[in-house]
């Protein structure tokens, strides 16, 4: 029962993270549904990110795991034990808050020592553990400074050290890098990832930044309106989004909707404005059904005199230079704008506004998604193969 366990000293203790399961976790506030039957199974040592826009329920979910919000129903299983109703100070979970929440009236060392002090470790043990923790985040020389004397990035590392020093089985991080500038953020993403890998701690990370999620996670749970839309590895989510929302939230995508037609063993999607797009054959698709597909902008080729299927003719409306690549907005027909992304290589043709071009992509890059506008709710879509399950 006692969750506040004191680990023995020394780095030789390979503390493996815990298994964390969320079972039908639901939270209602005065008739507003913050989370709706969230299910997630996180294996020990895994880094899972809850990704979604504001209001998607990701922070609420994290706060329920942390213990600051009481679920309306559902379970939170830590190594099989349900902790959903346990007070936060008995959960033994490390948390890095959005604004770090470092105690301003204590030095860095005192901040990091705080959880150990609560657990009544001896002075010597505390000193050693604090030293190791600060070493881990490379702030050993800052032990006697006050938080306000540190930069944002340094404060963030102290917060991380403080959350890890007592060797918790689970680490929660609530958009910890939001306040940092881009370069620093990218550095910290890698640093956090390395620390996590070396400590094997099970980590749940919340962010709205999809790039961050893709960089750091073993798996990502995309959330929307309180539900998990899809869970999978970064690659799965990017290349096989299950819904239009996921396709749109992670990276950019071009969405096409229409009904199916079959001709000689090939399946096509026919849109209202007359585009015929080949669709990969699959047992799940039936003729006449309304479906949606997405295509990633970087998978589309722009050229003239292209062959293959589909080849769509359009006019370049907009050219956006992004440094390493260029994005084009191409107008197909009267009404449809698609985005195409092209690497800026020396030999690439420089298209300009007004150019008449053809667009093509291969059928394997056409991803079928469910009609996600009206969410059916309930179980999330887990992409296959589920690598770590």
């Amino acid at each position: 029962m006692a969750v506040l366990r004191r680990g023995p000293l020394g780095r030789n203790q390979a503390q493996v993270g815990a298994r964390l399961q969320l079972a039908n976790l639901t939270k209602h506030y005065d008739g507003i549904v913050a989370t709706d039957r969230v299910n997630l199974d996180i294996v020990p040592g895994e880094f899972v990110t809850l990704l979604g826009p504001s209001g998607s329920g990701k922070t609420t979910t994290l706060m329920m795991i942390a213990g600051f919000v009481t679920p309306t129903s559902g379970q939170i299983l830590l190594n099989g034990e349900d902790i959903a109703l346990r007070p936060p100070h008995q959960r033994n979970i490390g948390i890095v808050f959005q604004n770090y929440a470092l105690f301003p009236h204590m030095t860095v060392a005192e901040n990091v020592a705080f959880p150990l002090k609560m657990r009544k470790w001896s002075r010597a043990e505390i000193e050693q553990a604090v030293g190791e923790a600060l070493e881990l985040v490379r702030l050993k020389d800052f032990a006697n400074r006050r938080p306000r004397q540190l930069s944002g990035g340094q404060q963030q590392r102290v917060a991380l050290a403080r959350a890890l020093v007592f060797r918790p089985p689970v680490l929660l991080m609530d958009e910890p890098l939001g306040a940092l500038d881009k370069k620093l953020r990218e550095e910290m993403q890698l640093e956090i990832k390395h620390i996590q890998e070396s400590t094997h701690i099970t980590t749940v990370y919340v962010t709205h930044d999809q790039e961050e999620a893709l960089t750091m996670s073993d798996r990502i749970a995309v959330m929307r309106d309180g539900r998990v839309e899809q869970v999978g590895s970064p690659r799965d989510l990017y290349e096989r989004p299950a819904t239009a929302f996921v396709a749109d939230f992670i990276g950019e995508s071009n969405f096409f909707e229409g009904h199916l037609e079959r001709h000689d063993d090939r399946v096509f999607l026919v849109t209202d404005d007359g585009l015929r797009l080949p669709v990969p054959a699959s047992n799940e698709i039936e003729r006449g059904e309304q479906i949606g597909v997405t295509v990633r902008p970087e998978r589309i080729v722009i050229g003239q005199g292209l062959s293959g299927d589909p080849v769509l003719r359009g006019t370049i409306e907009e050219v956006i230079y992004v440094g390493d690549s260029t994005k084009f907005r191409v107008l197909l027909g009267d009404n449809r704008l698609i985005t195409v992304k092209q690497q800026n290589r020396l030999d690439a043709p420089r298209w300009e506004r007004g150019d008449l071009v053809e667009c093509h992509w291969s059928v394997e890059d056409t991803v079928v998604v469910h009609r996600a506008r009206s969410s059916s709710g309930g179980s999330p879509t887990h992409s296959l193969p589920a690598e770590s399950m």
Partner: protein
Amino acid sequence: MTVTQRNGARRISWGKVILVAYSVAVLLYLVGPLLVVLPLSFSSARYLTFPPPGWSLQWYERYLGSPQWTAATVRSLQLGVVVMLLAVVIGTAVAYGLAHLQFPGKRLVRAVVLSPLVVPVIILAVAVYELFLRLRLIGNFWALAIAHTVLALPFVVVLVSAALQTMDVALERAAASLGASEWQTFRYVTLPLIAPSMAAGAVFAFVTSWDELLVALFTSGTARATLPKRLWENVREFIDPTIAAVAVVIVGVSLLLLATLELLQLRAARNGGHNV
């Protein structure tokens, strides 16, 4: 009228000169009278003359030699300390409780707690007098202390509430996530951070009681009067410079506490808080 300093440009105009002269005059009006009383208390003359012909401590000797005055002074000091402690403890508890609760009517409760600040003290004074009269508590030290605490409480509640508000909510959560129970969170995280406001509230509470006249006038009884009450009783003889000495002592204690408070706050700001 003028172009002010905030705009960056500075043009001396008559308007500005008048404004400055006027402001100085008003400031003198605000602060002046007390500056006059101070030298009077050190006057070597037998009665009130300004400027004093010479300097002497005779009036302070008179003050300290009179059992009437010294007894009242001691009583007011004791009262002040007790009120200070009561107000800080109860007030902090109220502020902390209110900060962590939401309920319909919370605003009303807060308004009631703060109302002694604006409701005329005379009303409370006579009402409490009538009550204590019936309960035979006139002259009772603790009864008066409790009455004063009501007047002092709002200051503590306002100051501590403000401190709790500016304190990052996440700090309490962080402490909990790190294993601190509620009490430990309060003791190691919240308390050190609101301590400066508690100290300020304590000083305000003391001064409120120390200066208070109306309630004490009715309730402290003749034998055990507070210092302000004694002053009130004797103020018709304001020609007597002993009164000036008493006045200076009353003000002196207040200003001393004010200065102490400022010093503490400067030090706290420099250190960024206490150590755990």
